[in-house]
């Protein structure tokens, strides 16, 4: 691939992301829901935790031992960020290709000289805008609503974890996108994928309470590591050097997920070319 082609693909990637952002900004009310859900959904789990803990020192101690932190609000609200990030990715870039297929514009995109990887990964960067919004809402809530001290260096470490998390989650969403185009089912796919993450990634409870086989499944998924690392740097003051093995696993997962997503999409496209089903829905 020549440098000219690479530059052309980068321009196409930028155009694809810009398109997604332009569509998203036509619906500003979505940002109202992105204030409501990050606050209320973990808030309900927090009320549950208040009910289950009820100020009973042994119960609170049991939670802290299993979760690695006694900061229940921080634990649940950071879990809420992960849940919403996954939702944004699945409903956005994860289903973008399928929505193009439903609109009948996927074939036109395939006729452009842009690389297939641009089609697969192009919609993903625009999803960072609502994700950052959710992060800001939750960080402000934790700092000023719950009085959890979050120091600037802890925020920077969290930013480093997020930067490493981005390719891992983009790769996962690309894999999901390829599956959605193959099986032509958006809603059921999103609900299943999101449900799986909700059940095993430690979003609303410590992974330690899961049975062994479920813990193994949990640690095979990038969101589990991302969430554990975010909680470690923001709630327990862990340094990045303390998280070395976990971050290395995350980096490896990023590479694997991106390669797997590209490979799956390639197979889907090849099958669609053989059967002529690219435009079917």
């Amino acid at each position, binding site marked *: 691939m020549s440098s000219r082609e690479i530059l052309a693909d980068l321009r196409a990637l930028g155009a694809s992301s810009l398109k997604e952002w332009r569509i998203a900004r036509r619906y500003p*009310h979505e940002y109202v*829901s992105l204030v*409501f859900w990050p606050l*209320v*959904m973990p808030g*309900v*789990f927090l*009320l*549950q*935790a*208040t*009910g*289950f*803990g*009820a*100020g*009973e020192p*042994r*119960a*609170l101690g*049991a*939670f802290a031992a*299993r*979760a690695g932190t006694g900061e229940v609000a921080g634990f649940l609200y950071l879990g809420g960020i992960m849940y919403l990030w996954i939702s944004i990715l699945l409903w956005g870039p994860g289903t973008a290709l399928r929505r193009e297929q439903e609109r009948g514009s996927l074939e036109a995109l395939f006729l452009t000289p842009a690389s297939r990887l641009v089609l697969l990964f192009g919609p993903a960067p625009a999803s960072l805008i609502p994700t950052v919004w959710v992060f800001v809402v939750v960080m402000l809530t934790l700092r000023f609503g719950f009085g959890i001290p979050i120091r600037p260096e802890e925020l920077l470490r969290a930013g480093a974890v997020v930067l490493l998390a981005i390719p891992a989650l983009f790769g996962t969403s690309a894999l999901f996108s390829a599956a959605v185009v193959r099986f032509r089912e958006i809603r059921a796919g999103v*609900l299943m994928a999101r*449900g799986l993450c*909700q*059940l095993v990634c430690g*979003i*609303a*409870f*410590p992974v*330690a*309470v*899961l049975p062994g086989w479920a813990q193994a499944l949990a640690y095979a998924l990038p969101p589990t590591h991302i969430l554990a690392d975010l909680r470690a740097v923001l709630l327990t003051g862990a340094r990045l050097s303390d998280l070395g093995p976990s971050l290395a696993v995350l980096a490896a997962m990023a590479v694997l997920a991106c390669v797997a997503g590209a490979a799956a999409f390639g197979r889907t496209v090849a099958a669609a070319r053989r059967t002529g089903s690219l435009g079917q829905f």
Partner: protein
Amino acid sequence: MAVLKRNLRLLARHPFNMAGLVLMPLYQTLLPSLLLGASFLVGGRALGLGRLAGTVDLAGFLFTGAFVGSLIGGTFLGTWVSLSSDINTGTLVTSWLSPARRSAIALGDALAGLIISGTAGLILLGVGELAFGARLAGTAVLALPALLICLVALAGLAQLVAAFVLRVREAGAAVDVASYLAVAASCVLFPLAALPGALQPAALALPTTYALDLLRVAALGTSPHLPIGWEYVGLVATTVAMVTLGWLAFAGTERWLRRSGSIGLH
């Protein structure tokens, strides 16, 4: 009755939707809640829950909540799905031109939603008993009068939701939020004492809060929020208020639609 039969027939054509009504609350809410509760267990016992709610049966507490939560969710979403489907397919005008009263049509939708979600709720209770160790006493049937009164309240709520959907039309997000808040405020997932003091009166303004509390008292032996007699007074008073509000809202919306001629718009 015809509306009720139609909605039930439509559901029968999509059996996976019924499975979804059971599976979604299970993996979206119940399982995470059970696992969150498990993280507070001391020697396998829910000491904190026992202190606040008067029972250490975590599964029983959550699955009884899920039963009433299903009824609430079914009321909101069933009404919205049915009405928005009629609006989008253009059949609302035809229905309203029939000699049937419009409030009867809305009531038919509400009853269908309640039967469907009630069945899903009962299945969830069964799952809770068989698979998750919930121990619901046979005395749970003593809560039947409370649940029947609650159904009347939910029919009133359905009229309120129908009025809102007819006015707003693109009401999906708002109905979703309202349903979530109503389920949360009814103490489906946590004891009333876990709510901040300022929010407890809001919970006590809902008939579903009283009905669920009476169900838990009967099934699990929990401590009631108020003396039982006052719980029934609260339940009946809030039910009357809900039915009245629903009837007024629907009648007002019907008048507004007729004057503005906007029944066919979507």
